[in-house]
């Protein structure tokens, strides 16, 4: 009886040792890959930071309005954030590559899925950045046009343009990431429809006189307002 227990224990120990001896080189490979990945990710981060500084990415991000968002969220600059993001994505990729060497069943699929997700993540970030840039550009264009046309509430117009574009961009980002596609689609459709309906009602009731004035001015050829004073000829 005693001998049997000793034999079983010895066998278990031998199997454990064999298993450990089998996995130890793989762990060493994992550590080597992780270390190499850390070095590569660090180099990538430094390289990307230099490139972004060279192309004045922070200025671009400031124009896009992304810098203001980052400052409010107490986050570092856009250049720093993107460099760090690239570092972690690269390093995580290497670590997962190392983990796949261990040959743990089930983990392989998850790792493959992660690598398949990366391009979509980059596309989503691309859409987000350029969407913010477009929102900033068009809202500023609306603001300037409204101020120079002497329209009332130019800032409201500008904010409306920005909001519509950002909502549109976010719905595209979520769709690209595959997060709650149906919910986002329905929410976007509902929100967009509500905004348009609201605007239609607002213009219909509030802008009645304005529309009348505009149409009168537009189509009343030859009818000169006697009391109207001249605009200065700038040239």
């Amino acid at each position: 009886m005693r001998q049997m227990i000793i034999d079983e224990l010895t066998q278990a120990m031998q199997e454990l040792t064999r298993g450990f001896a089998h996995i130890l080189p793989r762990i060493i490979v994992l550590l080597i890959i992780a270390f190499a990945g850390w070095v590569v990710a660090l180099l990538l981060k430094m390289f990307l930071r230099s490139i972004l500084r060279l192309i004045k990415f922070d200025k671009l991000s400031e124009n896009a309005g992304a810098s203001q968002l980052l400052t409010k969220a107490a986050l570092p600059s856009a250049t720093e954030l993107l460099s760090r993001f690239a570092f972690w994505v690269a390093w995580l990729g290497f670590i997962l590559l190392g983990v796949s060497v261990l040959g743990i069943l089930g983990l392989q699929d998850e790792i493959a899925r992660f690598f398949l997700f990366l391009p979509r993540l980059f596309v989503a970030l691309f859409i987000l950045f350029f969407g913010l840039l477009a929102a900033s550009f068009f809202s500023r264009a609306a603001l300037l046009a409204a101020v120079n046309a002497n329209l009332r509430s130019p800032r409201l117009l500008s904010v409306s343009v920005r909001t519509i574009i950002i909502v549109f961009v976010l719905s595209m980002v979520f769709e690209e990431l595959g997060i709650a596609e149906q919910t986002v689609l329905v929410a976007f459709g509902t929100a967009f429809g509500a905004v348009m309906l609201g605007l239609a009602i607002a213009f219909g009731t509030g802008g009645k006189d304005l529309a009348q004035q505009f149409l009168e001015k537009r189509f009343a050829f030859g009818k000169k307002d006697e009391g109207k004073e001249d605009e200065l000829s700038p040239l």
Partner: protein
Amino acid sequence: MAEVKLAEESVLTDDFLRQLIDVGEVDILVGVPTHNNAKTIGPIVETIQAGILKFFPRERAAIINADGGSRDGTPKLIASAAIHDTRPNSKPYALRTFHSISTQYASSLALGTALRTIMAAAELLRAKACAVISPESTQITADWLTTLLRPIYTEEFDLVLPTYSRHRFDGILLTNLLYPMTRALYGLKIREPYALDFAFSGRLGSQFLAQNAWHDETAQAGSETQLTLAAIAGEYRICQSFLGAKEHAERHSADLVPAMRQTVGALFSSLEPNFSLWNARTGSQPIPTTGAAREFIPEPLRVNRKRLREMFSTGVAELESVFQSILSPSTLAELQRIARTEDVPFRYSAELWVKTVYEFAAAYHQSVISRDHIIQALAPLFRGRAFTFLTENINGSDADVENNIESLCLEFERTKPYLLEIWKR
């Protein structure tokens, strides 16, 4: 070989090219860019023809109409205008060929393309002197032709710019920005850097045609101003000629931004390639001027100053986020202070105006935001400056207004080092 290349690359249509080939070579060419100008164009073309026949009877001449898709029959009017009315009287003087050609360069107005078409035609016809007359210059007289073309044809000038007798408050963008800034930076006292009636030599036209970025929309919009700046940069011989009175044209507030794009946008964009030129120049020199200004009694002009003030104050308040990218904190704070002034008329001083314009020019160079947005953002501030200019001169004489403009010019010249300082940031 050069002509073949021109035909391939230019904006000239095949039909127009055939008509030009039929003309052969000319000495004098008069270009008339049009777009729905049926109301005014007839008498203008008649006057041009009369002027050519009177002052250049021995020269081969052509009138080229570049039309931007008029739908009111303008090109037909030009083709038929006054040939029968003018020629019989002028026949004794018409010793050489005289052609009148019209071409449609596009289906919509594009002044840059119109000028390009006229320049390409002038180059192809090897015109020695070419004048461009605005279809809105209803006050044109036959004398204009000799006033504009003679300095080029006989005195070898390359660019003749006009001067006019104007209402003292007409052309405030010219007197408060374009003229003083061009003068301060390039060192030449050119009173009308943006001209719609002007003349240029064949060599300047060819050089400008080859160098200008015609595919760039900004360059297209301000091609008249760019021609002046190209002549300055190329050190061509420039003079200005007095043409007479310029009538006040009725404008709308919406006209200001396009006008600023054509003039201020062109001036700002010229600063980058010409940095070495304006960086080195100090002070300013007069340029040769022909013809003396005659006394002019303008029609009274009613200006809505209240509206100017309101648009300035609203602009400063609403565009704060835009100005933060363009202006220095001290300039912005000062603008906000005067925009908040109530009851009494505010004073947008010459010092502050010059500082504002220079900061805008530097922001344009550094592209802190879209360049077109920078130009648009300057419009409300210009209205504020226009308000102050009107308020300060409302009871002044013409001489007082001139003194005021002169002191503004000197302020632009005095503050030039500030522009150089912020340019390199």
